[in-house]
């Protein structure tokens, strides 16, 4: 598996909007590149930055976090928290020499199957160009963009 050239993407989706948006994409038979794996949480605000780092450490090339649109969060303000945390995390990634675009935040509603497809395909393409994240002994300069 290690030598597999296929990109590995983790997509954290909230139960109410983006997971349902992914379902909507499937129901409409919108074809997507199969290289992503969805991990469902109830709210995007459950996604601790540590979990994202953990995913990158375990070999994810990129991590997508998808939540409800601003103002639409099922839990009132959860997505605003997510927004702040991801912004901070991206700053931290830069410090660590990891391209911040490896973490992407998107708002996708339950009826936006088309948007889910577009975001996922785009993100997979982008990560295919970046390649796997080499953490051990690799110069950080390689990652700068």
């Amino acid at each position, binding site marked *: 598996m290690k030598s597999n050239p296929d990109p590995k993407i983790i997509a954290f989706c909230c139960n109410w909007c983006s997971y*349902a948006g992914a379902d909507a994409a499937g129901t409409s038979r919108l074809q997507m590149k*199969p290289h992503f794996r969805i991990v469902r*949480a109830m709210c995007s605000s459950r996604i601790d930055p540590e979990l994202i780092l953990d995913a990158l450490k375990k070999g994810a090339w990129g991590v997508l976090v998808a939540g409800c649109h601003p103002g639409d969060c099922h839990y009132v303000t*959860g997505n605003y*928290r997510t927004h702040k945390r991801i912004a901070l995390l991206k700053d931290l990634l830069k410090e660590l020499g990891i391209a911040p675009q490896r973490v992407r935040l998107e708002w996708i509603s339950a*009826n936006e199957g088309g948007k889910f497809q577009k975001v996922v395909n785009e993100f997979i393409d982008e990560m295919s160009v970046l390649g796997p994240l080499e953490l051990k002994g690799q110069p950080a300069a390689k990652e700068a963009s």
Partner: protein
Amino acid sequence: MKIGVYVCHCGGNISEVVDIKQLTSFAEKQSDVAIVRDNAHMCSDVGRNLVLEDIKKHNLDRIVVAACSPQFHGKTFMDIVKKAGLSPYLFEMANIREQCSWPHFDEPELATRKAKDLVNVGIAKVKLDESLERKSMPIGKRVLVVGAGIAGIQAALDLGDAGFEVFLVEKKPTIGGKMAQLSRTFPTEDCAACILSPKMADVPSNPNITLFTNSEVEKVSGFIGNFEVTINKKPRYVNDNCVSCGICEEKCPVKLPNEFEQGLTTRRAIYVPFEFAVPYKYVIDEPNCIYFQKGKCGNCKKVCPHDAVDFEQKPEKIEIKVDTIIVASGYDIFDASEKKVYGFGTNENVITSLEMERMIVHEAEGRPTRKIGNRIAFIQCVGSRDEQIGNEYCSRICCMYATKLSQLLKRTDPKRDVYVFYTDLRAYGKGFEEYYKRAARTGVKFIRGRVAELIEDPETKKVTVKVEDTLARQIIESEFDLVVLSVGMQPGEGTGKIAEVLRMTRSPGGFLQEAHPKFKPVDTLNDGVFICGCAQGPKDIPDTVAQASAAAARAIRLMNKGEYEVEPITAVVDEDLCSGCATCVSVCPYDAVKTEVKDDKRVAKVNEFLCQGCGSCSAACPSGASQQHWFMSSQLKAMVGAALGEEEE
């Protein structure tokens, strides 16, 4: 630990893409997996019994079902696991349909590989699942119904009749909504007022309904079984002494276009909205009242024999508590002036269908009305099916109301030439096609074509319609005395407001979104909140009434037992790890976390009834003390690992 893994074919939906054999033999190799089975339809009785029997026979203690989305059949299998005597939370679903076989049917090999990972994610999580149980919460029998058009009235009456306590809130001074303005209803041609007014009258006479007119829902906090509602009751400036004698109205010096009559008549600043208004009481139109604007006049107060006029009334904030909410906030008609090419508002003889409804009522009752003329054209799809103005949806009622109006016009004067210019004629309902044919037989001319332009003759004010007849393939330019725009529906301003207050999800057209388009058409994603009528989407009166009764029944279903079950997937704090920093307190949207001193140590404590289970506090906790049941950090990490193929192969 003994895990059972069940793979569904979904009648080919999955098995035509994913290699089931490969998937089951992969699952068999995973540690702690005791049984792997596959079935054509896991959700069928046969499939469910497989799980049930296996749990009992083989002492399985955890279940993974690889099938459709958990949002589709999650509950089905949780119920089975529970029935077998296990906690329903010792269960996971691997979504290999919506998120695998359907979006990846072009790449079956990669889809099979993905299905393996998804099953592995399920196995990784289920191993760490705790034995949780749903908790029961008491629930009362109080319902807030927002909006008192025909949808809200029907829902309120059904609930009231069933013995539930209803608070019906209407922003206008009367109930009745848009239906009250209609002439007749298609396809039976019942007089709208005649069938609506008895229902309206039933509202105040129902002992279980408390009616708030001239009132709006300002704030809602809390949750199912515990909603706290603030109603803003605007002053009517006329108290309950009013006997509707009408003396005040005669002395009021203000004359305004009557909005109920679409400007065909005038009304005063103190008025009753229409002749069958409920409550039938006067109201003062504050922005147009001379007393309120200039401090003078007060004629109405002077002449009232019952001392009913009270200029000192103030807006009232009324706080109520309810258990469930039904939103029936209705629609607005499309503002025809937005469709510039039709010149509504500038061309004198271009009117909306609602004006035509009132004109027909006036004509039938022998009341003065504007001249209808001999040549009348209806233009369909104004504000509907029109991407230029941003409304892609069909408003569903315009084809039939134009058919109705044209037929009524023809019947009162058979010499009239009535044309209907349509995009497609949609006569989809019971008796609709027959009704349309009848109209065509009475001589109404139906012409397929979208009208390109309307040109007003500056002298005669007659209007020339330019349109391509797309069936006869010819350009028509024809002059009419009156052009009626068949305006569609759009989400009402009130619907926008209540959506914000209740934080409800809206569909692409802006209408309120149902929890499931087929199986939960009146539920919403907000527990205990239901929708019905045109707030949910355009529909006619029979569908609105059916949906309103459905919403009432769904609300009763929740409340009738007196208790309902809540999900146990709340936050929980490990007091040994907690440092009492209260970060969790600051991020909770529900005030569900508080700190308290326990054994000389400050620790956070979660109120599991207030906690809605978002997990934001668990993500924010710097020490890992705050966790969310069923979504523990250890579980999420294990899922990520499995998803990346880290686990055993």
